[in-house]
């Protein structure tokens, strides 16, 4: 396994650090490797976008950080460090205390994240009191503040409403308020805008950006929507078949993609500023976890495939400002220097 030490001296300490993470799903037909040796980090106040097709492993990565991997999935190797403390080997109870307090999570469907039987006020106050020492009255006041902060009008009145009385966009705001209850250091947002209309999507995105700016929280934004990534994130990681194909500053990755997969992915996105007769398309489909090809996982679909790609797996290596796992860029800068 690669010794990914190149990040060691970059910063005093990133807020979240993932090193050589491997996630396995044991099945009757053998063990599937859903995440195969990925490493990345997120600094304080930074928004990292994670993109990729369905099945690339984006959500699983997020779930493993908050310790909510669906069994039989398990972390089989590597480490996850939050504020210098290793969190991937904690007991259920220890992890429960960190979740919510240090890490807030926002999921795609706001309706399933809220309990339909309780008022949103009750859900907020309960969460606040779990993680802080506030009294009931103080928690109530804090809940109203949070609702105001996420832009819910007439928060004082709305706090006694039930989830079904809110529209989709407003519900997602409530979920964000819930995630913020204990002022977490890290927010994992898994497709937070996918279920929403474009006009509401813009409101939620600007809210997320504002919160990361004001609270200095690190955000891991998982989405398949490159438009959302483009305007929200600082850096972006492109995932393919459980590996990181490319990671770098958002401008670089979108405008000057290095990995052939990223090039194809960016080209296939229809734009609203110039029309094309035909969109760029990547032939074929992402491999199933049961038959990931040897060497580079993308090699059967790659238009620039080399002999080496079929046998040897490329590691992330610096290419200009980004890092790409691709033999096209040779051994110029191996990952383990």
């Amino acid at each position, binding site marked *: 396994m690669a010794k990914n030490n190149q990040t060691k001296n970059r910063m005093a300490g990133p807020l979240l650090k993932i090193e050589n993470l491997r996630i396995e799903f044991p099945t009757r037909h053998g063990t599937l490797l859903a995440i195969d040796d990925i490493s990345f980090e997120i600094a304080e106040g930074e928004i990292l976008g994670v993109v990729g*097709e*369905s099945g690339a492993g984006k959500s699983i990565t997020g779930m493993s950080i908050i310790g909510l991997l669906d069994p039989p999935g398990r972390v089989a190797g590597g480490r996850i460090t939050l504020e210098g403390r290793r969190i991937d080997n904690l007991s259920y109870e220890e992890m429960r205390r960190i979740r919510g307090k240090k890490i807030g999570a926002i999921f795609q469907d706001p309706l399933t994240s809220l309990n339909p039987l309780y008022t949103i006020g009750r859900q907020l106050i309960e969460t606040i009191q779990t993680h802080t020492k506030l009294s009931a009255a103080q928690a109530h006041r804090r809940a109203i503040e949070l609702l105001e902060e996420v832009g819910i009008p007439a928060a004082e009145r709305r706090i006694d409403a039930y989830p079904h009385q809110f*529209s989709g*966009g*407003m519900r997602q705001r409530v979920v964000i308020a819930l995630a913020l209850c204990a002022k977490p250091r890290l927010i994992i947002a898994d497709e937070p805008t996918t279920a929403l*209309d*474009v*006009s*509401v*999507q*813009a*409101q939620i*995105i*600007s809210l997320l*950006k504002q919160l990361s700016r004001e609270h200095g929280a690190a955000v891991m934004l998982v989405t*398949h*929507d*490159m*438009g*959302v990534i*483009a*305007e929200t994130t600082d850096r972006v990681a492109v995932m393919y078949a459980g590996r990181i194909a490319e990671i770098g500053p*958002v*401008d670089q990755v*979108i*405008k*000057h*993609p*290095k990995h052939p997969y990223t*090039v*194809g*992915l*960016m*080209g*296939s*996105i*229809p*734009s*609203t*500023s*110039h*029309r*094309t*007769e*035909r*969109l*760029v*398309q*990547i032939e074929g*489909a992402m491999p199933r976890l049961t038959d990931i090809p040897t060497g580079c996982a993308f090699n059967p679909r790659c238009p620039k495939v080399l002999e080496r790609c079929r046998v040897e797996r490329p590691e992330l290596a610096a290419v200009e400002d980004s890092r790409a796992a691709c033999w096209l860029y040779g051994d110029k800068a191996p990952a383990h220097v």
Partner: protein
Amino acid sequence: MSEAALRQSPEAGAPLVSVQKLARYFDVSKPLLNRVLEREERLVLKAVDGISFDIPRGRTFALVGESGCGKSTVARCIVGLYRPSAGAILFDGVDMAALKSRHEIMPLRRRLQMIFQDPYASLNPRWRIANIIAEPIVAHRLMSDRKAIRARVDELLRHVGMAPKDGEKFPHEFSGGQRQRISIARALASNPEFLVCDEPTSALDVSVQAQILNLMTDLQAELGLTYLLISHDLAVVYNFADEVGVMYLGRLVEQGAVEELFRAPRHPYTRMLLDAIPDLDMTGRARTPVAGEVPDPIDPPPGCAFHPRCPHADERCRTEAPVSIRTADRQVACHGIEEGRIRVGERVVAQNNAVSVD
């Protein structure tokens, strides 16, 4: 386009599909007893409230709008899944809603087919692919010889980029993109002229979406198909359609040629929608978030339905519903535009959007 030319009817130039003042209402009232006891009125949801548009042969017309605006209801009315409450749908000059008997409707039905959004729900999991694709052929009694049907199915599978041996498999053996190819093959089985595509790519990943949209473009050129595309994705509409209608709460607020409408949107809602879409050249720039949400369609605001969210609304907008005014290249339903109150300009688009491929 030779086949397209052959299909031109005598009155060339006439639209293939003409939707005229189409309306579809749903009764969403409580049961009679509750209404009597609780003294409540009947509640009517006006999902589509008088919309008109034409689709010329061989072209693609797109309906866009946010969820709940009624675009899917229009699609379902056109293929006959809903009966219109008012208005007419002319297909090749024949009013489909007026046809009553089955033997009158069936020949027309053969000529129009639908592709649905969710390729997981629209294919019967217990049927083999070959039987799924052959269903329209059997239902319309287009062929009876089993060998001939199988040959036609193989041809259709090849047409959508799949292998004839895939006909032996079941839907669960395929990915979302492949399933959508199967849906397209099934839709093409009865040699239709018109396809209604309701969000055909929204359930797919972008790279797969590109494959499906390119396939649909190729099929249109090859077979001279006419498309109605229902989508909430403005970028897809911009790249795929020729003409577009923008819907808001059951009405068309603006329609025109895609290129023109995206370059210089007029209606404040169209402009809002275009401003709200994130684009790849937006890196680091904030888009203008739009205030408010789509109002409750059961109790829409009086006057222009968009007025509570419109920055240009005045007294007239709050009381009087605007009618659609036709100009050279556009139809817009807005008092502000009609009176010249709202200045129309071109949308600012970043030019340097091309992805460099090195």
